[in-house]
């Protein structure tokens, strides 16, 4: 009965074509690009901020958890409705509201696809710099929630460095503005806090972005090495030398095999590793700079360095990198991609550890990653239909993350914690660190109705807590493990 009431209320706001509730429709919204699944009870497609706020109020009235989803390209399960509830899909909020070419600003709705912003800005010689590999599909709202990266974040920073202000619907339905088109809004930096908060603090309904001038010239280098070690040493040397290229990407032997058998982009099949390096900016001195970087690669025994200035040749060299994840299908039915980051001088050691972990679990691991940032993307190849292989892949992934943290790195560089890595959070953060984050969450989301159970360690209880939640909603949330009875301690992590 309650379900019928909710549906009726939602249809009043969203009309017959703005709500999904039947199982065969909901199936399509039970997953993202991670391996976790969870079916929402209702899916709505708002076209305005007011509709988002209205949906939030309905969910609150009926005690439904809320999960926001853009294009569903996320890799950590952040947009999976594992507790059911109401899913708000932003893809019908896809208008670019303004391109201010004089001030290099864009104002967009959250459902705008990443690359559409650069396409709209290109007429003015501008672009939006963060370029996640899924940029042809992923939405800016998802990018902001995840603080997405991309190959060219080496020189220009990640999403958070390009977001100036947001309009946010809070979990109680109130709409606030944080930041704005000008720099340095006074008070706490709520914009900086919202970016990367994985939909747990508020719902982004509008964003003010910083655009960049398009580089006048780009030179792409392909450096071919016999071993991953040599290539990693070259990466560290290029960074330490004092020129920061636009991007430095690495692919190891396994990845090269997959890519070359899928499409011929001219990587030597017997190479141990290749580096793909973009130097860009002004044409003046750019080729000298490219040759300088080529010499550094040669110093670390690159057996061949190709320099491409012509757009078609550059495109061909990059096509392998951009299609690398897809090409893994040549080697195995499924892959699990990890996202650890290590200090750049630890790359050789950690890459060796990854190979060793693969051997120990009897799994093939390919590496395609943002070497300049130290952001690894080991692709663990397996077959999802085989539970034993799946279990081994997940365990090997966790072990790789552990190795990254031990090397002074972090759990995730750009994919987010979501469901996938929430139980790995204690590897990096103490109980006090996590408690502080839980308090910050409580300042925005005290009832924990927005994206519950994401980002914080689940321990035993997320589901249980949700079923008991309504009865306790009036109680204040307790944070202090030390002063609380043991059964409320779990509240901390939800």
């Amino acid at each position, binding site marked *: 009965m309650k379900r019928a009431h909710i549906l009726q209320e939602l249809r009043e706001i969203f009309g017959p074509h703005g709500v999904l509730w039947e199982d065969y429709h909901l199936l399509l919204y039970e997953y993202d690009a991670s391996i976790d699944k969870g079916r929402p009870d209702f899916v709505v497609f708002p076209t305005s901020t007011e509709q988002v706020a209205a949906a939030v109020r309905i969910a609150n009235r009926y005690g439904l958890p809320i999960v926001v989803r853009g294009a569903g390209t996320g890799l950590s399960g952040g947009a999976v409705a594992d507790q059911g509830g109401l899913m708000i899909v932003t893809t019908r909020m896809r208008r670019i509201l303004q391109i201010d070419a004089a*001030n290099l*600003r864009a104002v967009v709705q959250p459902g705008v696809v990443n690359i559409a912003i650069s396409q709209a800005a290109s007429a003015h*010689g*501008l672009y939006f710099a963060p370029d996640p590999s899924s940029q042809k599909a992923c939405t800016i709202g998802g990018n902001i929630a995840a603080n997405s990266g991309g190959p060219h974040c080496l020189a220009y*920073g*990640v999403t958070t460095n390009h977001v100036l202000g947001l309009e946010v619907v*809070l979990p109680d339905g*109130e709409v*606030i*503005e944080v930041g*704005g*088109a*000008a*720099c*340095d*809004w*006074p*008070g*706490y930096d709520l914009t*900086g*806090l919202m*970016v*990367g908060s994985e939909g747990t603090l508020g719902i982004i309904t509008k964003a003010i972005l910083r655009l960049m*001038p*398009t580089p*006048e010239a780009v030179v792409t280098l392909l450096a071919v090495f016999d071993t991953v070690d040599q290539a990693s040493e070259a990466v560290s040397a290029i960074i*330490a*030398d*004092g*020129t920061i290229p636009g991007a430095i990407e690495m692919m190891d032997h396994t990845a090269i095999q997959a890519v070359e058998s899928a499409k011929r982009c001219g990587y030597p099949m017997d190479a141990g590793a290749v580096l793909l390096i973009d130097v860009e*900016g*002004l044409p*003046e*001195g750019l080729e000298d700079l490219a040759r300088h970087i080529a010499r550094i690669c040669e110093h670390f025994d690159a057996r061949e360095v190709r320099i491409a200035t012509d757009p078609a040749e550059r495109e061909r060299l990059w096509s392998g990198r951009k299609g690398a994840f897809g090409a893994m299908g040549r080697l195995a039915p499924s892959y699990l991609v990890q996202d650890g*980051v290590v*200090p750049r001088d630890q790359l050789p050691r950690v890459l060796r550890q990854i190979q060793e972990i693969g051997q120990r679990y009897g799994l093939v691991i390919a590496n395609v990653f*943002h070497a300049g*940032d*130290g952001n690894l993307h080991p692709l663990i190849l397996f077959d999802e239909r085989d539970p034993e292989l799946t279990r081994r892949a997940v365990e090997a992934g966790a072990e790789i993350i552990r190795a990254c943290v031990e090397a*002074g*790195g*972090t759990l995730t*560089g750009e*994919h*987010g*914690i979501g469901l996938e890595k929430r139980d790995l*959070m204690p590897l990096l*953060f*103490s109980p*006090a*660190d*996590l408690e*502080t*984050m839980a*308090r*910050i*969450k*409580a*300042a*925005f989301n005290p009832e924990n109705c927005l994206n519950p159970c994401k980002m914080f360690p689940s321990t035993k209880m997320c589901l249980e807590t949700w079923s008991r939640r309504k009865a306790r909603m009036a109680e204040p949330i307790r944070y202090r493990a030390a002063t609380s009875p043991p059964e409320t301690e779990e509240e901390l992590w939800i």
Partner: protein
Amino acid sequence: MDLTARYPLNGHIPQEVRQPQTVEEVAEVLREAARSGWAVVPWGSGAHQGIGHAPTRYDLALDLTRLSRVLRHRPANLTIRVEAGMRLADLNAMLAEHGQWLPLDPPFGERATIGGILATGLSGPLRARYGSARDLLIGIRVALADGTLIQGGGEVVKNVAGYDLPKLFHGSLGTLGVMVEAAFKLWPRPKAEATWAFGFSRMEDALPLTLSMLRHPGFPLAVEVLNARAWEMLRGTLELPEDPGARVWVLVRAGGWPAQVERIGRDAAAAASGAQVKDRLTEETASLLWSRIPDIGFLPSPAPRDGMSVRLGLLPSQLAEGAAALEAAEEIRVVWRAHGTLGLIYAEGRGPMEALLQWADALRSFALAQGGHFTILGGPESAKRAMGLWAPLRPEAEVMRRIKAQLDPEGRLNPGRFGWA
């Protein structure tokens, strides 16, 4: 001299002073303060203690300048972790040996400590190229009000694990916790540099230059705009070009490989067609000039009784209107400078307090009408109380209040700095 007298704020001195030497000692001091119910004001060099309201309670000065160690510098990674009491100038002197720098140039940067720069969120001209400390900060360690030590971020350049605590603490004026360590990404020093000065008779004529530098793919290091009064102050001690007809000066600082530097200079000169003077400065003059510019438009702490300094946040294309608004009051002597590509203006006014308040009030109305923001950075506490520290005060302030209540429930860290936190 009594130690407490070295930490005056708005005419008050604290009852207690602590000068911890380690992070653990900071935590212990904060536990002591929690037991005693003391209101705590963290101190670095004191250069920026005038930012924000004077605290409403002030029992303990927590001096962090003895926490001044480099904890880990990984030159090959371009990352560093330091203690918060370290001076920026000392850090950059050390990094220069590696051809690296932390490219921050906030006001009073010769004295300022890392913790103070982070707490105030102040930046300088180099922000045009490198962003502010917000963009360079990759990790922090913080002692909370009860002495609990926490960390956020890490020591890698890309990291999305957990909430971005470095962003929250940056600019929080010491109201949420005491930053004790910070990790940064560093930049290589440019291989070559040059600075050009352009004098214009009106800000409108300078806009084509500043806006073309904003969209220049060579990314100039700094594009700083100064009014004539600021220029004359600098010219008192430096050999700078002169033009009695120039009301506005624009400095363009280019860095990179030599060919890129020359190209930026050529493009700047071409865009500055309305300039009366176009000069390339000598290396020595440029270096001295850039060390002095960040202090311009800022009042030192404690502020003089006849002065106020303010910040306007506008769009880069609104600087001409901003310049006109700043200089509209005849009885106020105004020195201002702006980050030309960022739209931030720092202005210092001198004159009778009543006229200063009218001047500030008009600027606030102007900034709000432009869709921007207004903040009083320096001046007598009475002026800050009369005006309110910043505008617009939006509904988001309620969320800020809740964050403050979560992290410092007893309200003992720099109470009242924001007016409400």
